[in-house]
């Protein structure tokens, strides 16, 4: 049986190219509740046939959240359903639909966006990070790291959407050219956006306490921020209702002593990010979308 871990899990959007194109056309006029309702009978098939995803999700609710066996079973359904809603919302966004995003923590982002130095914005596979771009707009140029294994449809739609928002997609590449691009954006006072919970490229990780056990978090984002001495914010965009999302913005590593070695600061930032992520996921457990053994 294939074992999946951080490095092998890419989390690209499901569906073939023609399916994704059909979804884009459909979501220009299809009411979102109707789209969600169409998904409801499909979810049990995912639970039945995607055993790896089912097991990971069940174990998460059973052992990390502490729910009973039956409650965990139904939580897996809710988890898969939420995932489907988030994917639908992404395509609705690409198709030109808008969502109501609210946050009490915008001043954290605004303060950094208005200052001269660049900074880093870390997302996660919890909630709907991609939708954050609509709220967190800035005059600064933003480079967002994207997994290059997505289909052309997803990449084209992202590119079209991001072009309107002064956002440059930076695909992860084998020749490491993304590192030079991200570094250049930061040094020119821009924003670098990437996930903080997914190991890709380098296998270097920091082991951080997460839901009671150590879990590997990618070292790269934190080392980049610490080496360049730039600020970092964690952004979590969590679904509340059909059209409404709440955005949480937390500054990471703000109280760290700059005199400490970069690696020490990077590890402390990774641990702080893991703590923030856990607090948000505890509040929205069905929006945890890492469908593999995250602690492996």
């Amino acid at each position, binding site marked *: 049986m294939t074992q999946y871990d951080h490095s092998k899990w890419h989390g690209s959007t499901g569906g073939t190219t023609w399916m994704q194109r059909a979804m884009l056309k459909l979501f220009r006029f299809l009411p979102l509740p109707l789209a969600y309702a169409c998904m409801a009978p499909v979810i049990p098939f995912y639970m039945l046939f995607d055993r790896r995803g089912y097991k990971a999700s069940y174990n998460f609710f059973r052992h990390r959240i502490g729910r009973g066996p039956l409650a965990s079973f139904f939580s897996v359904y809710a988890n898969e359903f939420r995932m489907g809603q988030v994917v639908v919302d992404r395509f609705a966004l690409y198709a030109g639909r808008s969502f109501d995003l609210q946050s009490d923590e915008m001043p954290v982002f605004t303060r950094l966006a208005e200052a001269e130095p660049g900074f880093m914005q870390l997302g996660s596979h919890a909630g709907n990070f991609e939708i954050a771009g609509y709220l967190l707009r800035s005059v600064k140029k933003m480079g967002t790291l994207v997994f290059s294994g997505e289909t052309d449809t997803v990449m084209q739609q992202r590119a079209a959407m991001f072009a309107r928002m002064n956002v440059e997609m930076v695909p992860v590449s084998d020749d490491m050219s993304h590192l030079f691009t991200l570094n250049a954006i930061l040094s020119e006072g821009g924003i670098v956006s990437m996930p903080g919970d997914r190991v890709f*490229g380098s296998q270097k990780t920091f082991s951080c306490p997460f839901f009671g056990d150590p879990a590997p978090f990618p070292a790269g984002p934190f080392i980049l921020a610490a*080496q360049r001495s730039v600020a970092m914010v964690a952004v979590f965009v969590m679904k509340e209702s059909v059209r409404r999302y709440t955005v949480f913005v937390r500054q990471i590593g703000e109280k760290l002593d700059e005199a400490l070695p970069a690696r020490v600061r990077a590890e402390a930032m990774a641990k702080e990010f893991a703590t923030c992520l856990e607090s948000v996921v505890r509040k929205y457990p069905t929006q945890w979308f890492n469908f593999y053994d995250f602690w492996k």
Partner: protein
Amino acid sequence: MKELIEEIKAQIISALNLEEMTPADIDDNAPLFGDEGLGLDSIDVLELIVLMEKNYGIKLSNPAEGKAVFQSVAVMADYVSKHRTK
């Protein structure tokens, strides 16, 4: 040049936290990446990019150029000697 090579080796050891190594353990011409030589990876490249900028005022934004520069410590030292601004 020998002095600059030793300086860069010390900086690499410090930046990458290679506590178990000394400058003498790093061959001037050994490849920095891959299974031979130091075996550095993409995160280490990131740190070397920042090291070059902070310590020598060299901004590497072209991946092809960066890859060529980070071939070995000797190549790095040669590039630094020609392009450093501080």
